[in-house]
C-alpha cells in the first residue's frame, strides 16, 4: 500500500510538509488552509503525488499545531483548536502545560490515525456507490453539501448560506462553460477566464487576517512557559481512552459530511466528552478529558474530510477544498474513476497521511518547545513577509497582476465579512462547488426535458434533498435546544 512512499523524495516532501504544517498551525491567523493556498503555486514544480502528499501533510500537522498555541497563549492557532483553549489554557495556568500538550499530542495522533483507517476503508466504498450517480444525483449531493454550510461553526446559519451563495456567484464570473457567453465580466478581458481559486482563498484567509491583525497590534498575549512536554500518565490514559475513541469516531463522521471540518468536529467532540464525563464540573477549568475530546476529534476530521474529497470531488472542509484544487491543477480528477485507474496514487496519499500523523507526534513531542517560540515572532515582522509571499504566490499561477488585485479585494471583503459575523469558509466551498451545481443542474434539466419535478423521481437524489432539509433544520433545532437549556 505504501510502496510509492518509499522514495527519498517523497519522504523528504512529507518531512517538510509536516514541519511546515506545524509552523503554520502554531501561528495564529495562518493555519493549513491559508498555508495550503500559499504553497499551492510551489507544488507546480512537483509531480502530482508529491504535491498532494505535501498538501495533506500540511493539513494533518497544521490541525495539530493549533493546539500548541491554544494551550500556551490561549489563542487557537487554527479555528479547529478553539475548543482546546477551554481546558488547555487553564491546565497550563496550573503549571501543567507539558501534561496538556502531551495529551493533545497523543489524542491528535490517535484521532488522525483512526481517521486514516476510516478513509482507507470508507472512501473506496463511497466511490463504488458513486458509480450509481448521474447528473441529478450529483446536483442533489452538491446541494446537500451547500446546505451543510448552514451548520458550520457557531455563526448565523443564514449568514453562512448567504456566504455560500456568494461563493457560487463568484464561480459564475467569466465565460459560461456551456454556451461561452460572458457573465459579470464588465468588459475586463482578464475576467473572461473567471475568478481563480487561489486569489480568493489567499485574499479571504491571509489578507483579511492581515487586516484583522492590524486592529490588534496593541494586544499582549500572556504566554505560559513550557518546560517539557509530558506523555500522559497511566491515570490520564485510564480517564481519557474512551473519550479519545469516541471523539475519533465523531471527528471522522463529521469530517465525512461535506463542508463540515475540524472546527465543528472539535466542538461536538468536546461537548460529547463533557456529556459522558464523570466529572463534567471540571470542564472549562483544566479538564484533561476536554483536551482529549477536542483534539482527537479535530484531527480525526482530517481523514474523514478526505473521504468525500477523493471519492466524490466534494470538499469535506476548507483545507480539503485547497487539496481538491491541487488535484485539479495537477490534472487528477477526483471521483470513482480515480479509485479504479490510479490506486497507487490514492494509497500513496493514505500512506502519507498515516506517516504525517506519526511524524507530527515525534515533532510535537520533541520540538513543541521550539514551535512554541515561533509565536514570539512579532506580527510587525511576520505579516509583511506573509504579504510578499501571498502576492508572489498569487501572481505566479497565471502571471497576472489582476489576480493580485483580486486577492487584495477579497482580503478587504473577507475582513468586513468576518467583522459582521459572516464566515469566509462557505465562500470557498461555494466557489469550488459552484461549477458542479450549475453544470449538473443544467445537464439534469436537459435529461429531464426541463421538468424540475423529475428530480424527485430519483431515489438517491430524493434522499440527498431530504438530508438537505434536515441540514437546514438542524441549526434551528440546535438553537431552540440551547435556548431551552438556558431558560
Amino acid at each position: 500500500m505504501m510502496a510509492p512512499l518509499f522514495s527519498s523524495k517523497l519522504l523528504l516532501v512529507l518531512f517538510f510538509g509536516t514541519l511546515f504544517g506545524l509552523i503554520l498551525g502554531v501561528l495564529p491567523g495562518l493555519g493549513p488552509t491559508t498555508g495550503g493556498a500559499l504553497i499551492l503555486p510551489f507544488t507546480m514544480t512537483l509531480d502530482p503525488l508529491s504535491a498532494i502528499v505535501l498538501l495533506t501533510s500540511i493539513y494533518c500537522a497544521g490541525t495539530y499545531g493549533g493546539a500548541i498555541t491554544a494551550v500556551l497563549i490561549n489563542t487557537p492557532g487554527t479555528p479547529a483548536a478553539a475548543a482546546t483553549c477551554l481546558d488547555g489554557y487553564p491546565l497550563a495556568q496550573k503549571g501543567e502545560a507539558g501534561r496538556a500538550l502531551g495529551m493533545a499530542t497523543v489524542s491528535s495522533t490517535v484521532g488522525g490515525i483512526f481517521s486514516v483507517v476510516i478513509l482507507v476503508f470508507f472512501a473506496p466504498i463511497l466511490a463504488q456507490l458513486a458509480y450509481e450517480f448521474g447528473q441529478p444525483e450529483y446536483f442533489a449531493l452538491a446541494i446537500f453539501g451547500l446546505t451543510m454550510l448552514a451548520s458550520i461553526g457557531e455563526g448565523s446559519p443564514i449568514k453562512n448560506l448567504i456566504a455560500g451563495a456568494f461563493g457560487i456567484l463568484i464561480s459564475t464570473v467569466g465565460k459560461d462553460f456551456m454556451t461561452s457567453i460572458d457573465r459579470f465580466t464588465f468588459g475586463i478581458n482578464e475576467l473572461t477566464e473567471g475568478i481563480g481559486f487561489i486569489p480568493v482563498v489567499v485574499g479571504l484567509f491571509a489578507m483579511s487576517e492581515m487586516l484583522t491583525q492590524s486592529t490588534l497590534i496593541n494586544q499582549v498575549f500572556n504566554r505560559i512557559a513550557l518546560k517539557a512536554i509530558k506523555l500522559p500518565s497511566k491515570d490520564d490514559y485510564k480517564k481519557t481512552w474512551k473519550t479519545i475513541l469516541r471523539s475519533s469516531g465523531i471527528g471522522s463522521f463529521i469530517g465525512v459530511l461535506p463542508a463540515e471540518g475540524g472546527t465543528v468536529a472539535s466542538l461536538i467532540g468536546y461537548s460529547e466528552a463533557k456529556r459522558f464525563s464523570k466529572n463534567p464540573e471540571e470542564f472549562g477549568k483544566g479538564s484533561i478529558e476536554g483536551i482529549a475530546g477536542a483534539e482527537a476529534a479535530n484531527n480525526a476530521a482530517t481523514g474523514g474530510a478526505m473521504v468525500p474529497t477523493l471519492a466524490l470531488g466534494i470538499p469535506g472542509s476548507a483545507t480539503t477544498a485547497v487539496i481538491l484544487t491541487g488535484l485539479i491543477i495537477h490534472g487528477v480528477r477526483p471521483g470513482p474513476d480515480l479509485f479504479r485507474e490510479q490506486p497507487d496514487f490514492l494509497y500513496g496519499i493514505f500512506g502519507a497521511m498515516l506517516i504525517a500523523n506519526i511524524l507530527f507526534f515525534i515533532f510535537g513531542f520533541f520540538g513543541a518547545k521550539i514551535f512554541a517560540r515561533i509565536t514570539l515572532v512579532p506580527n510587525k515582522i511576520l505579516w509583511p513577509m506573509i504579504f510578499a509571499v501571498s502576492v508572489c504566490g498569487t501572481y505566479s499561477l497565471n502571471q497576472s497582476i489582476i489576480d493580485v488585485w483580486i486577492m487584495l479585494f477579497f482580503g478587504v471583503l473577507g475582513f468586513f465579512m468576518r467583522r459582521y459575523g459572516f464566515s469566509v469558509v462557505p465562500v470557498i466551498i461555494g466557489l469550488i462547488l459552484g461549477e458542479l451545481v450549475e453544470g449538473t443542474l443544467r445537464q439534469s434539466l436537459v435529461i429531464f426535458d426541463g421538468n424540475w419535478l423529475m428530480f424527485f423521481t430519483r431515489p438517491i437524489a430524493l434522499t440527498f434533498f431530504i438530508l438537505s432539509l434536515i441540514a437546514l433544520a438542524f441549526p434551528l433545532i440546535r438553537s431552540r435546544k440551547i435556548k431551552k437549556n438556558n431558560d
Partner: protein
Amino acid sequence: MKNVQKQKRANKSLPFFFKDEFRVSLVIILISVALLITTFTFDIVPPILNRGIQPATFPKALLVLIIVMTLLIYYLATKNPWKVEKKLPRSFFLTLSSFVVFVVVSKTLDFFLAISALSIFVSYCWGEKRIFYLLLVGIIFPIIVFIFFETILGLRFPPGIITNIYYS
C-alpha cells in the same frame, strides 16, 4: 457575555440607519440588485443551443436568494440586534490605504517596489522602528522571495523600473 449584552443594548438605542445590521443589509441588497440588473444584459442563447436554462437564469436565482436571505437576517436582527463593533483603529486604515498604494505603484512604477514599499510601511505603522528589521522585511525578504519564485518556478515578473534593472 455581559459585554455582548451591553453592546447589544447600545445598538438598540441607535436610530435604525446607524445600525450595522441595516447598513450591512443595505450594502448587500444594493450590490445584489445592481448585479441582478446586469444579468438582464447577458446574451440570450437561441433554443437550439440552450442547455437546460439560459446562462443568466442561474445567477439571477442566486441573487434573488441572496436578497431574500439578507432581508431575513435583517428581520431577525430587528428582534435580536447585532453587537456594536468597536471603532477601527488608525493602524487598520493605514494598512488598508497601503493596499491602495500597492495597486497604484504596482500598476504605474514597479511590482517589486510596491511589495517593498508596502512591507516597510506596514511594518513601520505596526510599530517597528529598527532599521535592520525594516530592511529585512522590505528589501532582503522580498529579494529572496523574488529570486526563489524566478529560479524555482521560472516566473517572469511584470516589467517596472527595478525589475527591468534585474532582468537586464
